[in-house]
């Protein structure tokens, strides 16, 4: 009696576990399916690409599409690299200083300043696009990468400030007080204590800003023109034409996706921390 009951429970247990794993494996296939199709199509000879044979593997690998896509992107890959490097570093450094001030210095109006900075996380960028365009044009910054660097630095400040502030709050105040008693000033404390302790904070912020700016499209398509466009605009053009050769946009999509995907795969722990910082405020 007891035995049959026990094996019944065991049976139920194993059916449940099997079902869970089947679901997970099906889910994995569904999630990877689009990736498979892109890579598959990008490696096919354009003459062999035919809608009905999407799911067949290429007869032989055809790497030329990548060379062609890189050629079509032209300066746009380099534009994205310049843009991302500068805007990421600038917004990270300024955000770090802001976070330091907001978490460690009881400055007047902090309760008022911090929410005002945070609200910048919520605004839809469509809401500032037209005045921004006007401003950039009048400042003679419209159309190029320097202007886009400024834009991404500024609109990146709310999130970088938030992440660093929450990071620095964990550093015990006593540590800084002790240094202050020894005569350390604002900058000494930052360079000698706070900055050395914030390596992982910088990793989170840099990864987050890097992927966000690399992937961004709205500012890119409205604020840059021609040879100054970043890679996302180049990809949209590659794929947007009327008579599309699908091997090219697919190779382009792989190239455009590669840097953030690599960063994600190597440093996913830090990527998730950035991801959650933007959604759950502590």
């Amino acid at each position, binding site marked *: 009696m007891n035995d049959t009951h026990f094996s019944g429970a065991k049976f139920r247990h194993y059916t449940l576990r099997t079902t869970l794993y089947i679901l997970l494996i099906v889910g994995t296939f569904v999630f990877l399916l689009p990736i498979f199709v892109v890579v598959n199509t990008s490696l096919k000879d354009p003459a062999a690409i035919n809608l009905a044979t999407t799911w067949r593997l290429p007869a032989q690998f055809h790497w030329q599409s990548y060379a062609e896509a890189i050629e079509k992107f032209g300066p746009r890959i380099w534009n994205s690299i310049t843009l991302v490097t500068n805007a990421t570093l600038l917004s990270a450094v300024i955000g770090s200083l802001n976070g330091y001030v907001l978490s460690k210095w009881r400055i007047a109006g902090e309760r008022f300043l911090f929410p*005002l900075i945070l609200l910048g996380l919520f605004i839809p960028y469509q809401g500032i696009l037209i005045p921004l365009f006007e401003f950039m044009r009048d400042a003679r910054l419209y159309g190029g990468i320097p202007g886009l660097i400024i834009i991404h630095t500024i609109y990146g400040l709310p999130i970088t400030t938030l992440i660093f502030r929450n990071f620095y709050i964990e550093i015990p105040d006593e540590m800084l007080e002790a240094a202050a008693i020894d005569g350390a000033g604002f900058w000494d404390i930052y360079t000698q204590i706070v900055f050395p302790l914030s390596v992982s904070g910088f990793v989170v912020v840099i990864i987050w800003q890097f992927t966000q700016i690399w992937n961004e499209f709205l500012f890119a398509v409205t604020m840059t023109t021609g040879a100054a466009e970043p890679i996302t605009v180049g990809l949209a053009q590659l794929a947007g034409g009327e008579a599309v050769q699908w091997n090219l946009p697919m190779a382009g999509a792989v190239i455009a996706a590669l840097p953030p995907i690599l960063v994600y795969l190597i440093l996913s722990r830090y990527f998730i921390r950035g991801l959650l910082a933007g959604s759950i405020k502590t």
Partner: protein
Amino acid sequence: MRNRQDRLTALLMLMPTFILLGIFVYFFLGKTIYYSTTDWGENPSQPALSENVIRQNIGLQNYQNLMTDIIQAMFRNSLTNMFFFFVFFVVGSVAVGLLLTIILDQKIVAETFFRTIFLSPMALSFVVTGTIWRWLLQPDGGLNYLPTVFGLEPFHFNWMNSQDVWFQFTWDKVPQYLTFVGFAILALLAVRRVLRQDWRSASFMSALAGIVILIFAAGVWDRIWLPLDVPEAEPSIAPKGFNAALVGVIIAAIWQMSGYVMAIFTAGLRGIPEDLREAAQVDGCSNLKVYTHIILPQLRPFVISTIIILGHTSLKIFDLVFAMSGPDNARTVMPGILVYTKGFRQNSFAQASAIATIVLLLVIITAVPYLYVQLRHHE
């Protein structure tokens, strides 16, 4: 550390950010709202792109045009599209995200591997996602031909170009729908209060429900709504409703964002004390009951935050649709796209500003419950 000069330095360090955000966020938002009340781009004698263009204030004319003018039907379509996108995208992402969270909570082997896969689309840009799915959803290939791999017949759904429209409605019926939805929600809340024997709020909710019905019965809606005179231009040619062409966009968006939902829910799950679960299990709760009675209620604030975040994604949606079906596709057009086409292609800056202002208003309205939850969660 607290000497006066250092405090001044601290304040000075914060000032650039404060001033920059003051200009680039708050001042620009104000400017957009102001431009929405002008004729910038509408007056033929004033070239829109001239640096000393004269803008005349025309009050709320742009908004009225957007709501009533026949040639602005595209905008009203975009609102409808956004509404249906929002509903199905949020429900789909939360459902898939919750399912993944619960499955991966069962002490799964290689849990990290599965998590990495499910979250990976979040590292892609919407433009990449859009490009990929555009190819996948070609009518005579891609997903439609997936069954042929198993020797089955292909599907024939015409994804991005489908002309089907589901849940058709007409604008003059909208007050009825709103009344019905409002009444249903309030009645449901009232019933829940009655079940909890909370008579005071039950009667309050019932009273509110009654007021909603009264407002409708008294014809207040008709007074406000009908003078807007929203044109129903040839409804047989362009029926309003859920455009089937949006289904593909919704699937692509769920594919990209459900891993994100999973990440948020997982973070919430990890915040639930382990002893709470164990105590429930010791008390003889079945696995299912632990979820319905302990875990899901604890996850509630995270669910609400997620809905708001995904709601904001829907309100701002731009790049995904742009890359998937192009900026000019009337069946998938979104307000966020119209700001771009009207402003940066047609130089109708005032109208683009009016649309941007409407998007902004919607964002603010939906951010209020979010901030409420966040603040309450803090206390």
